[in-house]
């Protein structure tokens, strides 16, 4: 058992949760408290229900970006969709869903195959799109001229997490039973050290850094988009 396994596996996760929750609550409270004058941008949806439909459409398909920049839209939509798929897929690293698989009539082998094909493809796609976004940021003058350290840190962090994750998937076999046992302990506050696989440690460490960074960086666009769109769609 190494010090890294203890720090990353036993101490950091609780810090991560506290920092993330406190940070997000602080931000959202601040946004809620701030006076919001009317600033309708036409053509705005006419009713509140249409407004929320429009916001959902923006969150799901990035309609305004589609109108504004087709190539960025394609790259970033695929990037976000693959990321979402990967996050959902990560639930299997934490636990298994035997009842769900039974209900769907899938055997363990079926589930593993699905996970390998879909998860594997998403892992490759998200890496490719992440590289595209980085190259675009470096080479397209109009983007490069407004890019700061933070923009590269955010993208670099995601790429590092994606690469270590891809190594876990495509490299030497990583036994999910080990991680499930570990997370079961973590959730019941009887956590043992994290699995010793060095790629797992790197991946898990950077993932937690990313989660803690959300309330303090442009990753705030995840909760923020609902607020900012709401402002301009409000009649």
């Amino acid at each position: 058992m190494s010090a890294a396994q203890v720090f990353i596996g036993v101490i950091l996760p609780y810090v991560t949760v506290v920092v993330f929750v406190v940070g997000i609550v602080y931000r959202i409270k601040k946004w809620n408290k701030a006076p919001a004058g009317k600033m309708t941008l036409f053509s705005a949806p006419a009713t509140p229900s249409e407004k929320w439909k429009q916001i959902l459409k923006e969150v799901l398909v990035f309609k305004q970006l589609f109108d504004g920049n087709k190539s960025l839209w394609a790259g970033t939509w695929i990037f976000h969709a693959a990321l979402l798929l990967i996050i959902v897929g990560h639930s299997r690293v934490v636990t298994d869903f035997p009842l769900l698989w039974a209900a769907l009539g899938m055997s363990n082998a079926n589930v593993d195959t699905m996970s390998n094909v879909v998860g594997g493809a998403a892992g490759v796609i998200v890496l490719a799109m992440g590289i595209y976004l980085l190259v675009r940021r470096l080479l397209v003058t109009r983007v490069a001229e407004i890019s700061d350290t933070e923009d590269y840190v955010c993208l670099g962090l995601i790429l590092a997490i994606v690469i270590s994750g891809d190594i876990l998937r495509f490299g030497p076999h990583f036994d999910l039973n080990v991680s499930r046992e570990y997370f079961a302990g973590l959730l019941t506050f009887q956590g043992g050290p994290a699995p010793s696989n060095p790629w797992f440690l790197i991946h898990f460490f950077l993932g937690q850094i990313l989660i803690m960074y959300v309330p303090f960086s442009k990753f705030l666009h995840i909760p923020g988009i609902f607020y900012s769109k709401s402002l301009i769609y409000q009649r």
Partner: protein
Amino acid sequence: MNTISKNSTQGHEIGQAEMDKVVAAVRAIKDGPRSLQLYMDLCAKCGTCATQCHVSEADPERRTNPAGRSDLIRKMFNEDGSVIRKIASALSSKGSAGLIDKKTVEEWARDFYECSGCRRCAKFCPFGIDNSVITRKGRAILHSLGLTPTRLVDTQEVSNKFGNDEGFNRAAFMDVINFLEEELEEEHGVPIKIPVDKEGAEVLYCGASADFQNSPDTVMGYAAFFHAAGIDWTMSYEACDAANMGLFTGDDPHMKAKNKVLHDACMKLGVKKLVIGECGHAYRIAKFIGGSNYWGKDIPYQITNIFYLAADLVKKGAFKLDPSRNPIPVTYHDPCNFARSTGLTEEPRELIRACVSDFREMTPNRDANWCCGGGGGLANLDSAEGVKKRETSFQEYRMNIGGKKKLEQIRATGAGYVAAPCANCKRHIDQLMEYHKMDVKVGGVFDLLNRALVLKNGN
């Protein structure tokens, strides 16, 4: 030639007190408004706005990049709130020092007056970030330092004194009204009254006072319309101007005070409707920023635009219109404040189609229209004035950079007349056509109506 008045920003001293004021104003964003807070937090620097901004497209530089301009405030706000800065400033006991310097304030005075606040970026930003809000905040800070361009400050002062931006006293105003009535009778062959301060009228009409001198045909069009429609209307001397520089200078108290002039006139005359004319920002303030937002939900009058009234009656066939009287090809310029900030896009088109024989759309149009380049008060600015002398005069900037997209759009239509229902757009596009030696007339929509209208017993 020295036309710079006592308010000149040129040579204005920027000392520590001014810089402290800037820092305090930027810090205050932590208390709102919500839009600014979100815009400080969310921007992902994707660069989409740079490709959707008429200024940034015409002159692709970092300083014209909307996200880059907004960074002038955003970086300062975020840096100020950072842990690293807090520790550093506690250790050095210098407080806000280093957040801003004299040179940066000088750049603000230039850069925040190169954005016309047209809100087009917000239509294409994946998060809907409206950079005009940040521009206006920057301008508000500059205004508090006395760094607003002279022409705008002068206009506000004239307006505070006379209630209108043109500086008409009552006699001068009545003189214009009498002149317009004479012109109307000559043109239509029947007397057409322009009632002033008529108590109990149903409608109080209010537009940009600049129209009286710069676009008399537009004003005559309103009068002819009200006459033909049989609407019981009036103008008011006190409230002869709905234009409001407060939106452009970031001066909220001025914006509210100028809006109060309209409210007071409505209350005094007891009208049922306040009808705003061909002036985008005036209608935006009257209906969406001021009006019931300032004076309570139960104000006893409605606020609307003359386009809604006219389009409705034209649809019902209430007038005889002869499109052959406007034979030249006409295109329509959507003023940003109408199309994006009030949603008024179809009614002017319905009117034009009924009044002209050849109507041509620009592309893109409606809420995606390019700003003419004169928005946000820029149309009023000509000189090379700034805290430091500008590299180019505002006029050259508008003709070669701000107006470039609009020039291309108008050229592509092959139109001989641009209908631009906004005093800012009219002045700017008119200059643009002359500067680029285009044989294109610029005017209002009601100029066309005035010509097409066939009155009973008239010409």
